[in-house]
């Protein structure tokens, strides 16, 4: 894809601002939006994500090359799928019942596969969900740094995976591509790389021996 383009981050909670700051630093133009009025997050944007633009979700998405979903999963269920039609959407959300409660829609298998089914007009890639927001900025490193960490990128559309890998690389992680959303189950809570920060060889080793992606 063209050089750092336009990113829309949906969600201004724990995760969204962290991804937005990393993307700004990497040269992206970043819009941030919630389900409500951009005025509600104007102060947060000014002080916590300086350089980003608070916008209505529909406007942010319309202009974006990549849309990052960083909202609680139960809020995703209330999101109008049409909003994201025709877009490359990065799913940074997690289904984590012990922490966030149970959601019947996500009871079976991979959460991103459920998200993809609910967004039939979008191209979905699972990424940026498995490194804790507390350390995501701290552990980012430029390409080639000896202590650079890896981050998984899983999707069914190779072009979309490549574009997302570009985003992951620019914000400071070695992208490890997984060949399908199904294979991306290894990135979920309870999986071998969730909440752990690993180098690329460690990461590849950890996911290779995990059977979540094989069945």
């Amino acid at each position, binding site marked *: 894809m063209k050089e750092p383009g336009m990113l829309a981050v949906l969600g201004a909670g*724990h995760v969204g601002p962290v991804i937005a700051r990393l993307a700004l630093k990497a040269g992206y133009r970043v819009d941030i939006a919630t389900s409500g009025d951009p005025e509600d997050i104007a102060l947060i944007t000014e002080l916590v994500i300086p350089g980003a633009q608070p916008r209505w979700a529909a406007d942010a998405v319309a202009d974006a090359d990549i849309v990052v979903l960083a909202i609680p999963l139960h809020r995703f269920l209330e999101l109008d799928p049409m909003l994201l039609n025709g877009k490359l959407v990065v799913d940074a959300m997690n289904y984590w019942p012990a922490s966030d409660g149970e959601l019947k829609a996500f009871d079976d298998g991979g959460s991103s596969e459920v998200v993809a089914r609910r967004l039939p007009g979008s191209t979905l890639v699972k990424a940026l969900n498995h490194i804790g927001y507390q350390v995501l900025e*701290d552990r980012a490193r430029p390409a080639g740094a000896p202590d650079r960490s890896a981050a998984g990128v899983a999707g069914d559309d190779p072009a979309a995976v490549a574009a997302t890998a570009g985003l992951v690389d620019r914000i400071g992680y070695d992208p490890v591509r997984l060949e399908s959303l199904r294979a991306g189950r290894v990135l979920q809570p309870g999986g071998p790389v969730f909440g752990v920060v690993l180098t690329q060889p460690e990461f590849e080793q950890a996911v290779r021996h995990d059977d979540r992606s094989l069945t």
Partner: protein
Amino acid sequence: MTYTFGLDTFGDRNSDTDGNPLSHAQTIRNVAEEGVFAEQAGVDFFGIGEHHTGYFPMPAGDVVLAAIAARTERIRLGSAVTVLSSDDPVRVFQRYSTLNAISGGRAEVILGRGSSIESFPLFGYDLADYEDLFDEKATLFAELLKGGPVTWEGKTRPALLNQDVVPHTESGPFPAWIGVGGNPQSVIRAARLGFSLALAIIGGPPARFSAYSQLFQRALEKFGRPPLPVLVHSPGHIAATDEQAKAEFWPRWREIITLVAPERGFAIPTEESFDRETGPHGALYVGSPETVAHKIATNLRALEATRFDLKYGMPGLTHDQLMTNIELYGHQVIPRVRELLS
């Protein structure tokens, strides 16, 4: 600038010197002793966090705080935190207003989720409703704190119509904070409702919260409220030397975080991650009085906060180790931080 210093506990279950767990009852009696000793050591605040597990058997911290209140004169006493979403704000107000009466006006409350999720299934709440529950209940709690008859209607408890809620406080609202773990929208909510801000920093570099104090004060301005204080709550352990503190704390930290990791999504701690968190840019205050004092002073300054609450203890440590921690915190760390900040 006036700084204040607190200690928080979750009622971490003690072990004896052979590593055998003490009873829940003995652990609770020890917490009361620790609270009384904290005052003697010169600590300003003693907080008890609500938990409902065998390793944190502390669901009714306000009862323990009342016992401490009866044996102390000066130390402030409060929750750290009260899991408001799975409680009734009216009952929480009544319990802490009663504590305020018993203690002669020394009660405080920190409202939040903490890392406690056990209360949701226990009391029949759905974690998926967490945000809505907290928002509505915190709004009602802010009304209750004002002290007059309350009229309120919502989805989470029966409506109140011009309801007088007793006991009344003698001198206005007691201090009330909202605990925030990194969500900027929670910072805005605290400001909107007029609560002070408690930053719970339990992992990762504390400096990343530096914009939050500014966000909080700007939001207070926007809502037409006067400035309110910011406190930092973080875990740690103090012993005579860095080596001793780490040697005592590390196995207990590894054990408990490994136990809760699957349900909380924490990584299993490694020696490397522990070294990072106990180092100058990590969230754990583990070390000698000098090491811990420097870290507290640095972060209070960076985060524009005026209170630091050390969450001391960890399940499996002994009561004696905790008493030593309290003594070193009160007699050495607090005076040293004041000196560093003056």
